[in-house]
């Protein structure tokens, strides 16, 4: 079973990482998008922090739902509905006593339902999907996350704003994959993965 407290510190950590790396995310998004991915998620992280601070949850589903709703209503752009849908979908899955890989899989389903991206289209999906495999076979680590992230470099975007660049999107890391990398690094750091 996934521990609610640990998940809460996971999500808090995620917010911190995103906030610390706001400029880096904006820069990645400037290269192949509109330069706001860091600002968008930092706005979301601040709202999540405000929501979670001093709050304690008994049920994982409630925690995920609150986070999802806050992200949906504060982030905007493409990443708001995508991350929001991921957490709302995880909230639903959490009702079924799901394990971590089941939860993350539900999150990915939420993203895909909302954004219709397949793997290889240079989006956050290209982080979530291989991460799920790594979680399943117990190989998730900062190194494997970084390896997955680097692979988005060579991809040509065909979803989201980066798709307008066509071939010129090649050679750049996808900002959404980077922010999702922070999410999964935070997962490891918060110890959610090792229980």
């Amino acid at each position: 079973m996934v521990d609610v407290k640990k998940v809460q510190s996971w999500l808090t950590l995620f917010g911190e990482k995103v906030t610390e790396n706001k400029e880096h995310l904006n820069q990645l998004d400037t290269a192949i998008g509109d330069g706001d991915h860091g600002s968008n998620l930092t706005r979301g992280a601040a709202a999540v922090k405000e929501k979670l601070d001093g709050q304690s949850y008994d049920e994982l589903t409630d925690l995920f739902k609150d986070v999802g709703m806050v992200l949906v209503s504060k982030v905007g752009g493409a990443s708001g509905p995508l991350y929001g849908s991921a957490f709302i979908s995880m909230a639903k899955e959490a009702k079924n006593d799901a394990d971590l890989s089941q939860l993350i899989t539900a999150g990915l389903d939420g993203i895909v339902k909302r954004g219709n991206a397949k793997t290889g289209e240079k989006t956050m999906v290209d982080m979530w999907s291989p991460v799920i495999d790594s979680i399943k076979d117990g190989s998730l680590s900062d190194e494997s996350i970084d390896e997955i992230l680097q692979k988005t470099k060579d991809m040509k975007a065909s979803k989201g704003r980066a798709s307008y660049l066509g071939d010129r999107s090649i050679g750049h890391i996808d900002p959404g994959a980077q922010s999702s990398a922070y999410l999964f690094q935070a997962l490891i750091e918060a110890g959610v993965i090792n229980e």
Partner: protein
Amino acid sequence: MKKIINEPDHVVDEMLNGLAFAYDSLVTRIPETTVIARKVEKSNKVGLVSGGGSGHEPSHAGFVGKGMLSAAVAGQVFTSPTPDQVLEGIKAADEGAGVFLVIKNYTGDVMNFDMAKELAELEDIDVEFVIVDDDIAVEDSTFTAGRRGVAGTVFMHKILGAAADSGASLSEIKELADKVNEQLFSIGLALSPATNPEVGKPGFELEDQEIEFGIGIHGEPGYRRETLQPSKELAKEFVTQLKKEMNWSEGDRYAALVNGMGATPLMEQFVFMNDVKKLLVDDEKLDLAFRKVGDYMTAIDMAGVSLTLLKIEDDQWLDYLNAPVDVIGW
């Protein structure tokens, strides 16, 4: 960054307050939201809502008022508004006959407006929508997120606004919107980039005499960079691209919009329209039955222009374009 602003992350809030104050006979800001709604007696007609990231002023709040939009929802600069805000816009627009959403085809807008539609339906408001994708600079959706929604959106607002005002039903408006969207084509170019105040740096770089064809309204890249040419050559490039798409014949009737991107003076826009006229009217023998020149769908302080053509398939579309409105920016 040299801008007349205060805190960069207060820009949207302060802009909406400034607009609502300046034009308080026409519009009002719904408290605690980023929604600008019109001050018009509700009369059981279809409500029309649009919106998107800020930075496209006068779009979209500048088109709120009698005969055009019921409400506009503003996001952060160049960032789609969130579903809860769009929902507030839908509620403000609802007169009991359903609400129609005009969405520009950008991933973020589509997803947020779609979630808002789901939320509105939970509150028993009928919602339909059109996703405007008029930007021919972009390859189609097999390769991209699909053609972007750009300045042509303003014609959509005008036509649907007049239709709604005349009492058209939600399904009639949906049908009209789809037909208009099929005939709506735009293309733009930039002389200089936009600077998002929250980012603080230009979105891209152009050399001293370099321009970019096919740019989007958030500074998305286009299809070609080259040296600045005379206005008539720029117009020719636009017309060539549009002709490829549209396959017009002599005598076909069109509405045309020369749109400034924010920092291009009207002087240049009128010169450009003069060149467009020579190509489309004198050479191609099209009938440009409706014409507009000015800043309608901008990209903050980008310098550049776009050209939108709408093929008039139905006389009524012209009547709708010509119908009087009471808005800030038309």
